[in-house]
């Protein structure tokens, strides 16, 4: 019994269908409870009710980065061990990651407007997220552009590797570029730190909820991709007679 058994699509389909209801229920429970709890938290003495945006902004930003890391791991597994489920999981995760990045950017902009007096600031953190979004777009576009599924998996895998290096590089380059113009850390919310317990626990619950939601969506979307692949394979066999 090893984790590589899940590289077998049949095994993956069986196991994922068994655990999917539980994960989905967990996601609904955590996300629902966390969001309601977060929405009912009292106002912050400085930020007023805008602190409630944090319960969406921080988990979304966290997932945006984590999903890319997951895609990197899945791409590596595909490139090294050629497990199809891994490549399909990376493909399935990308749109979710892109949506998370959009949520983080939009809520950040809406939050920034009353707090900093501007929708957008070329702050290192914000800029790095915009660049991450561009990487997501390129990755998704490349998947849809290549016809042969194995070639697409290979090319996007290589792109994911290179993109990861350059995403990190850009993060530090951007820091360098706007150093001294902006007092960086005071504007950012470091998750869990310097946050009052009143907000901390609902925030943790929301993070868990976002994570479970991602796992749910990932499982469903990977199952979709496996079914599509099987449909295409069967059709191809029919054509050949």
């Amino acid at each position: 019994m090893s984790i590589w058994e899940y590289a077998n699509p049949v095994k993956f389909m069986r196991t994922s269908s068994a655990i999917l209801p539980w994960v989905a229920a967990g996601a609904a429970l955590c996300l629902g409870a966390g969001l309601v709890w977060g929405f009912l938290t009292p106002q912050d003495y400085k930020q007023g009710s805008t602190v409630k945006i944090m319960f969406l902004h921080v988990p979304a930003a966290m997932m945006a980065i984590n999903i890319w890391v997951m895609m990197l791991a899945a791409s590596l597994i595909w490139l090294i061990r050629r497990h199809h489920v891994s490549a399909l999981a990376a493909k399935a995760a990308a749109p979710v990651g892109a949506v998370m990045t959009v949520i983080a950017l939009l809520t950040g902009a809406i939050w920034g407007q009353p707090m900093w007096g501007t929708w957008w600031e070329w702050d290192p953190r914000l800029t790095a997220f915009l660049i991450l979004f561009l990487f997501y777009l390129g990755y998704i576009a490349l998947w849809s552009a290549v016809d042969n599924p194995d070639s697409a998996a290979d090319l996007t895998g290589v792109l994911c590797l290179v993109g990861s290096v350059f995403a990190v590089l850009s993060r530090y380059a951007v820091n360098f570029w706007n150093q001294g113009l902006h007092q960086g850390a005071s504007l950012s919310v470091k998750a869990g730190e310097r946050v009052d317990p009143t907000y901390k626990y609902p925030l943790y619950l929301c993070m868990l909820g976002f994570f479970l939601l991602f796992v749910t969506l990932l499982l469903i979307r990977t199952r979709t991709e496996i079914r599509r692949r099987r449909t295409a394979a069967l059709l191809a066999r029919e054509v050949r007679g």
Partner: protein
Amino acid sequence: MIALLMRDLRLATRAGGGFGLGLAFFLIVCTLVPFGVGPEGGTLARIAPGILWVGALLACLLSLDRIFALDWEDGSLDLLATAPLPLEGAVLVKAAAHWITTGLPLVLAAPVFGVLLHLPAAAQPWLLVSLGVGTPALSMLGAFGAAITVGLRRGGLLMSLLVLPLYVPTLIFGAEAVRRGAAGADGATPLVFLSGITLAVLATMPFAAAAALRVNLR
């Protein structure tokens, strides 16, 4: 390798090779910007480092798809892949040829365009050096993007989407060096970072590009 380099250079300089097109594009960008922002010298001088770098970067992007597309169409890429020269080496040579035909003219012409945009004289050497150090990375990253999209219909547009985010660190450090030079400060720190990126790109990207080419040639 030398033979391949000479062949690529000859092909590029021949009629229809698109040689000099990037340079003309660069000139047009530098001409259009003052129309957009107004002819006032102080404003132009302030944004000149950024315009020159972005212009050079876009001019570089313009001719990237030619790196592999022609060889892909007539099948010589398959020959290169089976040649005794490793594909990584061939990629490096192709990127070098692209740099000599596109990057190098841009570097040499940049000071002239800098004068057009009122770039302070103190920044001119920084512009020359930073472009000279940075454009090889642009060519090499472009070769990677071209290798990924070589077999695709409408590959050009997709390639821009893939390559431009990769240009971010190079652009930041390159333009920063010129900006510091223009402000009379020492631009050595960003220049060192820029050289580091270029060297790392030249050392690693041929492998990624060759891997992508092998997938596309399968």
